């Protein structure tokens, strides 16, 4: 278990810089998720920490020691890959013990450690099987077993659940969380799935275009996004965004939308009259009735999911998604009426995207 620190990390391919000076401090035992859209540089950053990708500039420290010139093995990290990357010609036991064998550990010790890891991951019965005789979930567990058997300073996960079906993904997510609680090793987890990041991580790092947009706990990112990108990325379904101009309604600050309707916003928002802004409305913050902004429009689509229903309706010339109770009587073509409290309305500068 060790801390990890990134100091102004940069990565360039020729003249093209893809990671633009990322700095981050991860404390011992912390579970950090790197999230962002495809091509944002999250996997590149992870591979630079692993030592699989050369660092163009900046420093990576593991346990307070600069590890830039060290090989992955010397960095004492373990990595779980998206495609599992199990050696097809080796059994589960050989896969898990390969690293220890290369370290020159005596056979009895290898067997002991592989046995312990296998028990932890319920793989004992599968130790003599080859990877092609295992299901996707079992292969993923072997990949994790291969990582934990060596007792590394840091676990690196590169989208480890992307190849699994939805049900297995939820199950494995729970297993990873339980495993981290058991071994408490510092973990860095790359995913494009914000639900995975929210459920697993102590802190989330949102990346976009090779830069960090925001670092914070899942709830911090959800409740106080630093900008429109983070607000749009965190939360499912995604936040609804409408353009408008800061105005006043009944003596209170509001945002005047394109169709002339006004959405009142919290007085503490740092806005000025006439400022061009975007407002963000989280689908789950709509309530069927109550105080605050009354929002209504014709229902375009109703998607029942059981406990909740997703309603797509038209408002101010835009399509808006609302998440309401599963019993809500929304019907295609009927008028959907809802309300949203003013302090639930997010406001962002239209030019910079910064939260106001």
């Amino acid at each position, binding site marked *: 278990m060790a801390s990890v620190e990134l100091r102004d990390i940069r990565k360039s391919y020729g003249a093209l810089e893809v990671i633009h000076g990322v700095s981050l401090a991860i404390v011992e035992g912390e579970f950090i998720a790197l999230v962002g859209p495809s091509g944002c540089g999250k996997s590149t950053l992870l591979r630079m920490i692993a030592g*699989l990708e050369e660092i163009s500039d900046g420093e990576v420290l593991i346990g307070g020691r600069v590890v830039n010139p060290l090989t992955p*093995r010397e960095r004492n990290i373990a*990595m779980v*890959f*998206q495609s599992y*990357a199990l*050696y097809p*010609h080796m059994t589960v036991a050989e896969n898990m013990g390969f*690293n220890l064998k290369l*370290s020159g550990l005596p056979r009895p010790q290898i067997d002991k450690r592989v046995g312990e890891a296998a028990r932890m991951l319920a793989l004992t019965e599968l130790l003599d099987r080859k990877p092609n005789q295992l299901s996707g979930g079992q292969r993923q567990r072997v990949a994790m077993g291969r990582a934990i058997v060596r007792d590394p300073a840091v676990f690196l996960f590169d989208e480890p659940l992307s190849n699994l079906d939805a049900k297995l993904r939820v199950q494995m997510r729970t297993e990873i969380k339980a495993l981290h609680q058991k071994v408490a090793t510092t973990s860095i987890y790359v995913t494009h799935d914000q639900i995975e990041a929210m459920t697993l991580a102590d802190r989330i790092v949102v990346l976009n275009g090779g830069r960090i947009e925001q670092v914070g706990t899942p709830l911090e990112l959800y409740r106080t996004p630093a900008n429109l990108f983070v607000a749009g990325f965190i939360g499912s379904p995604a936040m609804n965004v409408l353009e408008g101009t800061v105005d006043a309604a009944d003596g209170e600050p509001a945002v005047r939308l394109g169709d002339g309707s006004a959405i009142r916003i919290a007085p503490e928002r740092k806005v000025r009259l006439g400022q061009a802004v975007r407002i963000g409305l989280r689908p789950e913050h709509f309530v069927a009735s109550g105080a605050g902004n009354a929002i209504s429009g014709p229902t375009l689509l109703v998607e029942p999911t059981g406990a909740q229903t997703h309603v797509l309706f038209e408002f101010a010339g835009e399509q808006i998604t609302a998440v309401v109770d599963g019993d809500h009587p929304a019907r295609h073509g009927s008028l959907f009426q809802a309300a949203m409290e003013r302090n639930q309305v997010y406001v962002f500068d239209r030019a910079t995207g910064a939260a106001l």
Partner: protein
Amino acid sequence: MTDTTSSARMTAGTRLYLYVSLSLIAILVLMPLVTTALGGFKSLGDLRVNPFGLPSEWLWSNYLDILFGDRYWRQMLNSLFIAIMTVTLTVIVSAMAAFTFAHVKFFGSNQLLNYFLIGLMFPAATAILPLFIRIRDLGLLDSYWGVILPQVAFGLGMSILLFRNYFRNLPEELFQAAFVDGCGYIRFFWHISMPLSRPIVSTVSIITFVHSWNSYILPLIMLNTEEKYPWPLGIMVYRGEFGTDWQLVLAFITLTILPTVIVFFVAQKHIIAGLTAGAVKS
């Protein structure tokens, strides 16, 4: 209904066309083999007046004399030794070179690879004179190594190409996982790449083996002592001062072809797997 009938007739027609074409090709391929095998049962006179038909009298002695003579077996052992050494050296050298070309980036790697691949354009026969001089200078004339080393050298182009393509198709993440586990290039080569490369090792081995097995010009130039002759040179023994015993030549050829055919049928799955490896996404 009409469509179905027409489609069935089309299918039957196409099938007939295919069967006829394939049968013709099969006859073209098999005829020389069958003629050779049958010729081995004839007397020289019978062979001259009736080269393609069944023997008027089946002379099993042609085959039996060869099989029970020591020359046939000695030359087979010579062929085996030359072929096995050629295969072993070709696989080891070309696999290591191909691994380097597949995974290690260094200045001039592409040019060096192209240099090796140029070898594909030159059959050994075109370079036989300089090769003879070089082998003579090395003191390897009339030795097995005088045949083995040029065969290895001329086989490298194709073998490196096959190995390199195979290695490049091994998943990149496997390499990274091994790197994280503590492998360097050499360990990855021995512990991961080679065990996963059985199909391509089989393919290269078989191609090289068959090539060495059938090699005629090179041993003819490099070897002088009859005790060192491989099988293909065995037929020279039947060439006399005043004539050639063609029926014995044909019997000898038939007996030397048989092992290659058997090996091909046993290993054809590996040959095809190796040649088509990486052609489609697995």
